[in-house]
């Protein structure tokens, strides 16, 4: 199972992904990975919990632990207190006299400060510029009626753009145990070295892809039958990918120049949806538009190109289809030449999307005798924006001109 969450904190974008695989022959994974965005404070909380044992019982233990950890952390409860409550809530295992699941909490604040709490899981790996950063860990003491199998550690640091944090359950670090290659398991040191190598070879690797690779390796170590529940979670503090979409002529013609200049200077990807809008920008920037005749088979007018603009599509029909695609659950398709698919690809590959919507109404589009009903641009864009925000977790801004 893959999960993905993104959040924008000041000068970097938080790209979180996780991947899980249950122990061979089990139906459910005994690890739980939770993320929570505290929008009001612009905080991101990430928790990995590994329930004792495997199967449904482990999953329940881990779910309870993870949800308590997320909720207490988001309420800013003191750490020792959070740990005590978690430990006293969970049942104790009779034989082993230990009763808990292990947990790791990562709390990323708006300013970039990151708090870590580690209890029992393989240690957090923090990567900065190809190096593994040593986190200075402080043991946390809690009331001694709790028998701790391992110490509880707290650490913190200030995140920087391009840092990566990797957290995994022991299904990763102990994968391959008993094998000839890794008699004692893959080991967190090897995991660390592996990730460093991956990052140096693919500096822009997404959280998604790194998770996938970790899982694939762990499963291969276990000769394709996972010996334990496996979870890998990756947090990547990367530069936000920005997109500006201009659609529609400004209400006031005097704003044409401003529109063209804003788009031209935008630091990110630039798209125009609408022929008239493209004409305005071409005129203002003294550039030429070239319409591509070779892809005319998608029941949409073909795309065009212009210097310094990444994509030009027709307006309302293409936006309408893009909205339908997003509603149906869109997956990027980088080979398609369908203008609406190309547009949706851009939506999904960016984090922050600004729509600049011209509000001048094209009277000809409102003619009731047209063979198809043309929606009002503003409405379609609003629907697309809502879809992207709610279901694709994008940060959206709409400016009307």
């Amino acid at each position, binding site marked *: 199972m893959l999960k993905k969450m993104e959040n924008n904190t000041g000068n970097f974008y938080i790209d979180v992904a996780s991947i899980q695989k249950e122990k061979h022959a089990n139906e459910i994974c005994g690890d739980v990975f939770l993320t929570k965005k505290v929008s009001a404070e612009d905080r991101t909380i990430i928790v990995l919990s590994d329930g004792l044992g495997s199967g449904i019982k482990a999953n329940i233990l881990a779910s309870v632990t993870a949800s308590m950890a997320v909720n207490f952390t988001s309420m800013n409860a003191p750490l020792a207190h959070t740990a005590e409550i978690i430990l006293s809530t969970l049942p104790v295992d009779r034989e082993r006299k230990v009763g808990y699941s292990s947990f790791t909490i990562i709390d990323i604040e708006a300013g970039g400060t990151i708090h870590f709490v580690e209890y029992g899981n393989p240690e957090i790996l923090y990567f900065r510029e190809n190096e593994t950063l040593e986190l200075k860990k402080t043991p946390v003491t809690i009331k001694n009626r709790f028998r701790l199998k391992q110490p509880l550690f707290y650490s913190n640091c200030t995140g920087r753009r391009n840092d990566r944090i990797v957290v995994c359950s022991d299904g990763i670090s102990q994968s391959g145990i008993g094998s000839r290659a890794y008699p004692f398991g893959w080991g967190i040191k090897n995991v660390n070295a592996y990730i460093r190598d991956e990052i140096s070879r693919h500096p822009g690797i997404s959280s998604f892809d790194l998770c996938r690779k970790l899982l694939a390796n762990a499963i291969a170590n276990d000769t394709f039958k996972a010996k334990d529940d496996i979870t890998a979670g990756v947090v990547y503090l990367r530069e936000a990918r920005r997109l500006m979409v201009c659609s529609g002529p400004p209400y006031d013609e005097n704003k044409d120049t401003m529109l063209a200049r804003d788009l031209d200077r935008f630091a990110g990807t630039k798209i125009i949806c609408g022929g008239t809008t493209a004409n305005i920008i071409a005129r203002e920037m003294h550039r030429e538009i070239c*319409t591509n005749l070779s892809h005319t088979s998608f029941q949409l007018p073909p795309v065009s190109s212009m210097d310094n603009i990444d994509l*030009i599509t027709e307006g*309302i029909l293409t936006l309408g289809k893009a909205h339908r695609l997003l509603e149906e659950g869109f997956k990027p398709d980088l080979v398609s030449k369908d203008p609406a698919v190309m547009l949706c690809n851009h939506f999904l590959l960016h984090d922050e999307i600004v729509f600049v919507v011209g509000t001048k109404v*094209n009277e000809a*589009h409102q003619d009731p005798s047209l063979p198809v009903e*043309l929606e009002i641009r503003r409405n379609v864009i609003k629907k697309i924006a809502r879809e992207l925000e709610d279901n694709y977790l994008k940060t959206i801004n709409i400016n009307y001109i």
Partner: protein
Amino acid sequence: MTEITICSGTLCYIMGGADIFEIETKLSEMYNDKIRIKASTCLGFCEGENKQNPPCVMVGNELIPDATIEKIINHLKRLYTR
């Protein structure tokens, strides 16, 4: 060389312009080296003072409103048999 510019703006496209893109397959070979087919964003005839019936196609400098492949071919014939 004559340029045929098919408007691919929204209005022209839905009013039959989409079908005109087929023209290449319908033209006789004699035009092969005489014409070039292009598409364009809205040509500006769907609104305002110069309003014309869509779909609009330009053959050289001449506008063909309410265009169909047939109309364009007839126009070409006139052009090249003069």
